[in-house]
Every structure is written in structure tokens, then in C-alpha cells.
């Protein structure tokens, strides 16, 4: 127990003194996960919306698959991406393995189904509200999607933040495809794994607190947004 207190004290010192390694790792975590978020949202938000309003033959199958993909174990995704990006794999010539780009790719694959699924559920509810009106007003397909996305933007924001939370805390996939290389692909989660393995709990705890703080901010943001929803302000 005394080790934990000692570790917490040193962690506080690291944060307070803005330790260079800590900053480097934190910024890279944000860079990787935010990039993954932007790309995944660009894919998932239109997809989820489109699935909510279009009727086509295998729609239920697609929706079920998308929901199932949410449960993809991240480490398995990491392994598959690793094999694809390795020099012996089909995309090896791109030389992406062990770079932040590979980590972003893996995280995009992991969080896109999550964002798409939440988006779909929110858009489906909104569409059932707006359905008769938008058809009556003779809207085009594109106008419908735009209206739903704009009026449902808070729910979409929640979906995106959920994806971000998943990404920033992920460790298995990015450890495999990134290689946890110091100053290149080391991020908060992989650094925690490394320092814990070395028995250096002070730095690991410091990194852990930063990660918790980031996750807390994200969750607070979601909470604030959804509360405005409940208060009746759209």
C-alpha cells in the first residue's frame, strides 16, 4: 500500500513538472485517437444515418453484422492489421507497420462499428419522428440525410465521443501494430503496459492518471450533452 502512495506522489510530481516524456506520450495518444475518431466518424456517421432511412433487401443482416462487429476483440484486429501491413503481407510495400498510421488504421477499424451503431439507433428514432413530414415536403434523399444529421447532432456527438473513449483506452491492437517504439509509437496505454512490466509504478501511475483524466473529460462531455437533451432543449 505504501508503494501505491509513493507512486501517486511521484506521479503528481511528474504531472506538475510537465515531464517531457509524459507530454510526448500524451500528445501522441491524442494525435492517434483523434485522427482515428475523425476518420471513423466520416465513415460511420453517414453509414449509420443511411442505414436508418433506406430500406433494402439485406438491411437487417447489415445492421446485425454492424452491431456484432462492435464486439470485435481489439487485439484480434491488431493481429490482422499487423499481418496485412507486414512486409510479408499484401500491404507491406506501404511501409506502414510500426508507425502511428498503422495505429490509426487499427483504431479506425475498432471504433467505426461502435459509432455507426449508436448513430443508427439515434437516427432511426429521429427518422420515425420526421418520416411523414419529410416525405410530405418532397425532400430528396440528400436533404433527408442532412436534416437528420443536423437535428440529431447531439446524439451523433455522443456517438463520436463514445468512439473516442474506446480508442484512447485501447492497448492491445496498437501495441501489436505500433510496436511501442519510444518517441515514435509509444502512447499512454502502451507506456503504462511497458512501465508496469518494468516494475516502475511511479511513471505507470502518472500515465494512468493522465489517461483517467482524459477519459473523465470525455465522459463529462457526454454527460453534459445528454443532459441538455433531457431538459427538453433540442
Amino acid at each position, binding site marked *: 500500500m505504501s508503494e501505491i502512495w509513493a507512486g501517486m506522489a511521484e506521479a503528481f510530481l511528474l504531472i506538475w513538472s*510537465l515531464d*517531457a516524456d509524459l*507530454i*510526448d506520450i500524451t*500528445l*501522441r495518444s491524442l*494525435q492517434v485517437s483523434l485522427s482515428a475518431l475523425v476518420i471513423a466518424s466520416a465513415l460511420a456517421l453517414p453509414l449509420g444515418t443511411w442505414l436508418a432511412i433506406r430500406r433494402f433487401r439485406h438491411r437487417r443482416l447489415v445492421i446485425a453484422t454492424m452491431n456484432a462487429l462492435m464486439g470485435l476483440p481489439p487485439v484480434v484486429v491488431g493481429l490482422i492489421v499487423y499481418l496485412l501491413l*507486414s*512486409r*510479408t503481407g499484401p500491404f*507491406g510495400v506501404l*511501409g506502414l*507497420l*510500426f508507425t502511428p498510421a498503422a495505429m490509426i488504421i487499427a483504431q479506425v477499424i475498432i471504433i467505426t462499428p461502435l459509432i455507426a451503431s449508436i448513430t443508427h439507433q439515434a437516427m432511426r428514432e429521429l427518422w420515425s419522428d420526421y418520416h411523414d413530414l419529410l416525405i410530405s415536403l418532397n425532400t430528396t434523399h440528400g436533404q433527408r440525410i442532412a436534416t437528420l444529421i443536423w437535428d440529431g447532432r447531439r446524439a451523433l456527438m455522443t456517438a463520436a465521443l463514445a468512439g473516442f473513449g474506446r480508442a484512447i483506452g485501447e492497448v492491445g491492437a496498437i501495441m501489436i501494430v505500433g*510496436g*511501442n*517504439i*519510444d518517441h*515514435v509509437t509509444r502512447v499512454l496505454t502502451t507506456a503504462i503496459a*511497458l512501465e*508496469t*512490466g*518494468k*516494475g*516502475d*509504478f511511479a511513471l505507470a501511475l502518472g500515465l494512468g492518471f493522465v489517461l483517467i483524466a482524459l477519459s473523465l473529460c470525455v465522459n463529462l462531455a457526454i454527460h453534459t450533452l445528454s443532459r441538455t437533451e433531457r431538459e427538453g432543449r433540442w
Partner: protein
Amino acid sequence: MIRAILIALTIAGTAASAETLRLAATTSFNNSGLSDVLLPAIAQDTGLDVQLLVVGTGQAIWLGQSGDVDAILVHSKSAELAFVAAGYGSHRREIMYNDFVVIGPSGDPAQVRAATSAIEALQSIASAQATFVSRGDDSGTHRKEMALWTAADHEPADFAAWYREVGAGMGASLNSASAMNAYILADRASWLNFGNKGDLSLLFAGDPALFNQYSYLPVNPERHAHVKAQAAQALENWLVSPRAERIINGYEIGGEALFVFNARP
């Protein structure tokens, strides 16, 4: 605060000036702390930015075979020779050695302290059925452990529950041993640099059978044309240089030297 901004800018930009080289090295090499001293010196003297992938020997060899790295630094002679023989590595260059030690609970229920050889130490542990943590990850350390069991006429596959394979790197395995208060075979450097010793202490060392040779193997450019053969050669030249010799021999933890430089020019 200014430091933070400067660091942010550095990350945002690209470090275009230094040439990068990918080296796969074993967890025991990194856990010893030696890499933290060598890498800056290498950058200073050669301008090379060595990107270090810290993995087990098995994965390091796999990375070398697939050409995902430019060179490997491992400590498993038989695997290394096979690597070169199969044409994946251009050659093998011995750099330095350290030794393995037997770590265990300070109470020493298996009486390892009294052993006169490494094999005897392991035999004592087996007969006492004392809890033993094995790397179990096909690393150099793990292979050394397996070789010792074989020499002691034991088959680890037949061991009962006292033998725990954790399938992890050196640090993580030491963590497990500390938590279980178990025996474990570790390289001296990782042990000295390990921060969570708990009740464990060094019980046996010094047997020549515990000799642990580290070698440098560049990936063969004839196999993988894209590898940075020149940079790998530059790194090799540095690793066998007098400067490297001074740093490696001079690296100490708690007043104890960990590695012995034995590269031949």
C-alpha cells in the same frame, strides 16, 4: 510550459534530418536500461535514430525474417545461426554478454543457495516442487531455461502446477514471480534494474552454463531489398567500437557492472 509547447511543435513537425533504423531487440536488453544509455550515444555519434522494438527473441527473429526491421539484437545462438544459415541475416556479430541468475524467495525453501551448479539449482527446485515462473515465450531466456532443464534430465511439459508458464517478457515475468514469491531464471541486468523485487533475492549465480551472449544480426538485403543495409552497417560499426566498449563496460546498477563487451574488431 514553454517546454510543453516546444515538445508539441517537435511532435507536430517531422524529424526529417536524422536517418532512422529499425532494430528489434530483446526485452531483457531493454529492461536492463542499457538501451536508454546506448541510443542517445548512437544518435550523437552516427546521426542514426534507432527505433527500438522491444520484443521476445522469437518475435525478433520473425521480424527479421519478414523484413519488418533492419537488424536484430538477440541472445540465442542456435536460433541466430539458423537465421543466418537460412539467408535471413547477412552475418552474426557478437557484441557483449551478461549472465543469467536464479532468483527466488529469500526464505529459499528449495535451498538453491547451497547448489554448486545451475543444473543442481534447478534440480533442487524440481524436487522441492517450489513455485517456479517460466518466461514461456520462446525468448532467449526461455530457451536457456529449457536447455538447463534438459541437461538436468527433466521435461518441463511433465511438471505439475508448481511450474508456471506466464508467456511474458522479463519484467512482466519478474512481476509475476514477485507476486507469487516464486523462483525464476532472469538475466542479471533485468534483475538489477527491476523495481518491484518484493521478497525475492538473488540466490545463485556464477556457473559458466549461465553465460548469455548477445549478438547483432543485420537483415540480409538480398532477401529484403528495402532494408537499410548501410545504416545497419553503420550501427554495427559503432557497436564494436571503443566508444561502445567504454559505455557497455561502464554501465552499472548499484555499483555492479552488468555487461561485458566481447566484440572482436
